[in-house]
């Protein structure tokens, strides 16, 4: 029962935590906009989400897995290894000091990411509401 609950919330949860990771990366880019030699970074969100949900769904490959000595045991799994492989942005106009942060791009990406985070949050919330309602005695 509980692991079914987890499965139904897993996708949104993974999406939310990846969005949060990306938020951090973008905040770091904006923070380092004036640091000489800093290279702007970002992640391929679709690929990372696919990887994360595949790991979570299969119950293997992520972190440490739990040995099961009986068929009735639940599959346990440790924290998945740190995800979010970071790539480097290709600059349109490289600056002389080696910094590759393009403020317009970063701020656009940041706003985009915030709204999508909020969308994931709303989705997760309504799913929780739905499950709660289904468990309510009438």
């Amino acid at each position: 029962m509980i692991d079914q609950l987890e499965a139904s919330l897993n996708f949104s949860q993974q999406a939310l935590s990846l969005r949060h990771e990306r938020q951090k990366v973008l905040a770091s880019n904006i923070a380092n906009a004036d640091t000489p030699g800093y290279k702007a970074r970002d992640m391929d969100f679709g690929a990372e989400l696919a990887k994360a949900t595949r790991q979570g769904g299969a119950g293997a490959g992520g972190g440490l897995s739990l040995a099961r000595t009986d068929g009735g045991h639940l599959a346990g799994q440790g924290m998945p290894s740190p995800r979010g492989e970071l790539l480097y942005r290709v600059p349109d106009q490289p600056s002389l000091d080696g910094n590759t942060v393009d403020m317009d791009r970063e701020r656009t990406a940041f706003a985009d990411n915030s709204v999508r985070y909020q969308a994931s949050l709303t989705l997760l919330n309504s799913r929780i509401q739905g499950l709660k309602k289904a468990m309510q005695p009438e």
Partner: protein
Amino acid sequence: MSMFSVFDISGSAMSAQSQRMNVTASNLANADSVAGPDGEAYRAKQVMFESQAASRRGVGGVGVREVVEDPAPLRREYRPEHPLADEQGYVSLPNVDPVAEMANMISASRSYQANVEVMNTNKQLMLKTLTLGEG
């Protein structure tokens, strides 16, 4: 707490930018200081930023590594009547470039604003996340 490290990142940038603003203010204020505590004219100062990406993944805030003095030569002006003039009648004036300082100031304030915005957006998202599943 990894959830709140976004605040650390933006906060470090805000403090670094305000330090840059302080240095700029000092430079502009002393653009005409012909004598400092050591008897020399004031020398312009610049901050050096340094990324604080401690983790292997290269995400982190920013900090001021050090404040360096501008090595450019002092401006010299011929003013024989000035009390601080040397034997040839020249007075050493600070090597502050007011135009560059103004540009620096605008850049610092814009960066500061961007980081405040990042922090506000994050705060709202975190507050929303804390009410997940309520209501």
